[in-house]
Every structure is written in structure tokens, then in C-alpha cells.
């Protein structure tokens, strides 16, 4: 069996060296940026997101529509609740799952869903981690008709919703149900992937990197049969993006 030392020694020898050398600082990669640089890059990204929030929200709406999100621009929280209710009715949903994003409480999503006759729940374990609870949450996600989340960030360049799974935001709520609804507030939209990964780098260098991250860009797709693009294979068949104009 190869152990790590032997494996790496082979690589070192193949590189024509006799010992592992630490690479010299190289501007090609961000690996050598110090904590202060990472922090200022991240602050810059957040500043842009807030200064240009309405422009970036509009660009997000356009990019999202191109890649298959059903985009709903709404004027206020009440309208957002109405859109959610009408999707529930349209899908004849009986079971809805949601994250604990603040915006969903602001919108009043629980009332909007229960008024249509569907049940709504969260996947929060309240800090407990037994494998029974994990299994329960999986089963609930696979049974749910609709999953509703806020967004942690969005990316205007690509029409992408970014989620960092954590307590109150399961990995499956945006994946297993056949319909996913994401609710976005202005100010949450970053300009491009550069800004997102600048912020991730800062989280990393300050020791706060999340356990995982999902970039979601529209409904699940495949083109594996005769090159024809079909929406909906393993993930949601339908993805709705509700963009709130005002907080």
C-alpha cells in the first residue's frame, strides 16, 4: 500500500527535486494574499453589492430568466406571499418545506402556504444531531412538493443563487422537492463570481468558512439524450425566483 510519504516522494522525484519546497509567492493564484488583502477584497464586494443594489437586482433578474428561473418581480412582501400562494395552488401542493431565512418570516410565508390548505414545516433540528433526526429530515425533503428558501447571496453575472447549508437551511430543501422557490432581497446580489469567491477567501482566512456551499442556477437540467435540453432530472423541475423591491 502506498503511504503518503512514498506517494509524495515519487511526485517530488518526478519534478526533478530531492525534497518538497514551499512554492515561492506567485501572483497567478490568490493563495499568497494575506488576511488584510482578503478582508479588503470582501469589503469591497459587499460595498458594491449595497451601493448598486437596484442595478444588480435588475441584472440578476435578466440573467436568471435566461437560464430557466421563473422570475417574479414583486413590489412588496404581500405580493411575494401572493406569488408563493399561487404557486402552491398551481402545484396542488400538500406539503411544503422551508428554510429559516429571515426574509421568509418577513413575507409571512407560513400563513400564505397554510391558507392554501398545504402544511409547512422547517428542517431545523434545533442543534440536535442524531441520525434519526437526519433521516427524518431526508424523508421529509423527498416527500415535500415545494421547498422555499431565501438566498445567502446571488450573483448578477450568472443568475445564480448561493446557499450555505447550516442549521435551519438543509441541503435538500432546495434540491429534493420538484419545485424550489427562492426569495431575494436587493442588496444580496453580488456582481460576479469574483466577488463571491473573494468573500469565500475572506471567510476562509478568518477561520469562518462554511461547511459547504451550493451555487444554484435555475432548474436541474440534462442534455444527455440526443443533445436535447430537458429541464428537471435529479433536482427541481421548476425553479422560481421572487425578487423583492423593498425590504
Amino acid at each position, binding site marked *: 500500500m502506498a503511504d503518503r510519504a512514498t506517494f509524495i516522494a515519487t511526485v517530488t522525484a518526478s519534478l526533478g527535486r530531492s525534497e518538497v519546497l514551499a512554492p515561492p509567492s506567485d501572483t497567478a493564484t490568490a493563495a499568497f494574499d494575506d488576511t488584510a488583502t482578503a478582508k479588503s477584497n470582501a469589503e469591497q464586494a459587499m460595498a458594491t453589492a449595497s451601493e448598486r443594489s437596484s442595478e444588480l437586482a435588475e441584472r440578476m433578474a435578466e440573467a436568471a430568466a435566461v437560464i430557466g428561473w421563473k422570475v417574479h418581480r414583486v413590489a412588496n412582501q404581500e405580493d411575494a406571499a401572493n406569488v408563493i400562494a399561487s404557486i402552491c395552488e398551481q402545484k396542488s401542493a400538500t406539503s411544503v418545506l422551508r428554510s429559516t431565512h429571515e426574509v421568509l418570516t418577513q413575507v409571512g410565508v407560513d400563513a400564505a402556504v397554510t391558507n392554501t390548505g398545504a402544511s409547512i414545516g422547517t428542517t431545523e433540528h434545533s442543534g440536535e444531531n442524531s441520525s434519526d433526526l437526519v433521516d427524518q429530515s431526508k424523508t421529509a425533503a423527498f416527500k415535500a412538493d415545494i421547498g422555499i428558501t431565501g438566498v445567502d447571496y446571488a450573483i448578477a453575472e450568472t443568475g445564480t443563487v448561493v446557499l450555505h447549508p447550516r442549521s435551519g437551511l438543509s441541503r435538500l430543501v432546495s434540491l429534493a422537492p420538484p419545485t424550489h422557490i427562492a426569495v431575494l432581497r436587493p442588496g444580496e446580489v453580488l456582481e460576479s463570481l469574483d466577488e463571491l469567491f473573494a468573500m469565500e477567501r475572506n471567510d476562509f482566512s478568518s477561520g469562518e468558512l462554511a461547511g459547504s456551499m451550493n451555487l444554484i442556477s435555475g432548474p436541474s437540467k440534462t442534455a444527455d439524450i440526443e443533445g*436535447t435540453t430537458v429541464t428537471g432530472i435529479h433536482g427541481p423541475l421548476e425553479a422560481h425566483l421572487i425578487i423583492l423591491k423593498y425590504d
Partner: protein
Amino acid sequence: MKPLTVNFRSKAAETLQDAQIQQSIEHVYTGFFKGRLEAAGDTPEWEELRTKGKAIKDHTIAHLDYYLGQLADNVEKNGGSVFFAEDAAEARKHIIDLAHKREIKTVIKSKSMVSEEMGLAEAMNDEGFETIETDLGEYIIQLAGETPYHLIAPAVHKSRTDVAKLLDDDFKEGDPVPDATELTMMAREKLRGVFERADMSVTGVNFAVAESGSIALVTNEGNGRMSTTVPRVHVAVMGMEKIIPSIQDLSTMLRILIRSATGQRISTYVTMVNGKRKPDEEEGPEEFHLVIMNNGRQKLLADPQMRESLNCIRCGACLNACPVYRKVGGHAYGWVYPGPIGAIVTPVLTGLKDASNLPNASSLCGACHDACPVKINIPRMLLELRYRTAEGSSDIEERTSGAKERGIWKAWRIGMMGRKRFDWAARLSRIVLLPIARNGWLKKTPPPISGWTSTRDFPLTASKSLKSRLSSRAKKAK
């Protein structure tokens, strides 16, 4: 996977004569090809991104030993385990042993070319684990008992009728053929139950981030997300070259990978996981294992002429751009990696002796070099491998070029070394060939050029060279 590179000629001929496959592959490749050009055209900083991508990979590969150590340290710091596998057999054994120890029943696989090197799905099924490919294309290929045809579109050669026969036991010849959406929904239904009951997943790795021990997975279907979420054990397998130093480098690498692969600005899902489920997460695997495999890559690394091929990010753009691949198809190349990139890495990884036809399956048009998001100079390496085949190398003890071939090239070299000699040689060739030409074309010739004209016509040397025609035109114009 056992290399079958020696069958290149017969497999290529088979594909060339299969009208149905020719039809089904052509429009997919051109679709990818056009998509990539459009995506690159829409991206004003495209060339800058390629330069950056190449710089990141050049730097990483030049310090691969350091970054491998850093990656392993950080994966372990995140609570994962790392296994270094010298070859495919070691990797396969490690994963199978792990599955036995954890009493695994169902394994879901997402697409991974490295796992194809291991022949992993087949080996795990043989060991009694229900092992199911979850990328739709790979699933179709698995049902058909074949190997992938393309890095990105594994089932590109299958028609809807073929797929219907595989997915629906009741489907008979002559039944109305379901459309792509209906077939996709049939597969969705079949695979959802599998996802729910899977207790282990095996995924590839698009990028492994050394500084944080993270892995990034890019999919459109969502199977990568399912695989990193549902089963209690997640095993990620990677070739040792798949490292990048920093999380921040992902923005460049994702942009060039995705645009080059499918022409999208972004794939539907990009998933980054830093090991197993964190205490505050609702679900996710209890165990994370990273398997880093060498399997001959140290030969590419140690070879200054071939090292650049380790920059490859497996986007498939060179395949779609290659006029030869687009005709002879993916199976002709006889191992895991088809197309231009396969033609340079397969001979080194599996042995040049059997694979010597691969570097010759190119017109050296350079389309692969233009298409490559990290600017790998594939044509240069194709020529290098042709040289080694002809002149002998550590792999091939005897030079394969015969005395006759070497004589022809020697004469060619002498003839090309001066203008006067060239003119003489051209005139001489016309005198020799004129008696066997018909209307200015050579359709059938005696040896040694009969091989050329058995499949294509060769034009007779013109009576006047371009140079003399131009100079007589210049004189007339005065």
C-alpha cells in the same frame, strides 16, 4: 479499465461506416463547439481568463508535491480521511474494502473519469454492492454495458430508440419512440428511489482546493448534490493533478471550465464541500474520504515535453473541436480519455507501443490548442509522440520507421533545402507522375504512395510553380 488502444484503426473504421452514429454525434459536437465559441465571444476577458487559468495550473503542477501535502493536511483537519493510491488497483481495493467495512448496500456514482480508470462501478457490482451511475448519460451507458463516448456527453451516440429500449423493458421495435423529456422523466423516477436508499456515494472532483481542503463539483443534473448530501459515506476520487491552491482561484477556473465544456456561463449546480457534515448542518455525510490517485501520472510529470498535459481540467473542448474525433468517435481511442487530450495522455499512461496510432489520428490543424481553456499545446505533444514512435523511446525499443520511410524523408529534406533543388524536384515529380495522371489527378498509384491514393485522390504537380506564375503575372502587369 483495460486499454484497447491497439484497436484504433478497426474501431475508427466501424464508426465511420455507421451512418446512424455519424448523424447523432455530429449535431451534438457542433452544438457544444458553437456554444463554446459563443460563450467565449460573450466574455470580453476570455483570453485573459485563459492566461490566468494556465498560470494557476502551471504554478500548481510545478509544486504539486507541496500542494498534495497541504491538501491532505486540510482534508484531515476538516475531519476527512485521505488515501494515496499509487495505481487504479490500489484505489479500487481501498474503496471496496471501505464499503465492506461500513456494510454498504447501495452505492451511487456521479460522473468521474478517474473512476473509469479504476473500472470501479463494475468492480463494485461484482463485489455485490448495488452500484448505480447517476449522471443520466452514464446511467444509459451502464444499462447498455458500454464505456463513455465523450467526457461531458457519455451517451452522445445513443438514439432515443436505443435509450427507450434500455429504460423501458416493455418497449418493442416499432412502438412510438418517446421524446427526450419523457425518457428523462422515466430515468428520474427510476433514480429517485436509488438516491433515497443509497448509503455510499462515489463522486469525482472538478477542483480540490489545497488551502482549505475543499472539493468543488460541477453538475447540471443535481446528482453531484444528491451524492454529497444523502448517503452516510462520501468518497471523492481524483487524479493527483486536480488541485488548485486557493478558494479564490475557483472563480477563474469555474468560468473557463464551464464555458469550455457546454458553452454555459454557469452550470446549474456548483457544489463545494469541506469534508463531512458540520455539527450545525441538517444533513450530509457522516464520513468523507478523499482518494488521490497517481496511476502513471508521474510519467507525465517527469517528462518535460509532456508535463503540460497535467494542466487539463477535463472540459472536453478539444474533443468537440477535433475534426478527427468528430468522425471516428469516442470508443476508437480505446481507453478512458478520447480525442486530442486522450491521444497525448493515453500513450504515456498506458504505453506508447499499443497506442502509437493515437497521436497519428490528427491533421495537426491546431483546433484543439485554440479551444483549450488552459492553452495546452496538444499539437506539439502529438508531434513529440510521433517522433518517439518513429525514432524509438523507452516504451518502444525499436524505431518503427523503416529504411524506406527514412529514405523518403531524407530525400524530402534534401529537396526542401534550396529553392533550385525544390524547383528541380517539383519538375521531376511531374515528369514521373504525368503518365499515370488522369485530368490532373492521381487516382491510383503504385507503391510507395498507393496507400495514400487508395482512399483519396492526389493532385498532379502543377506545370508551373506558384512562384513562377506570380512572377510572370508581375511582368505582365508592368
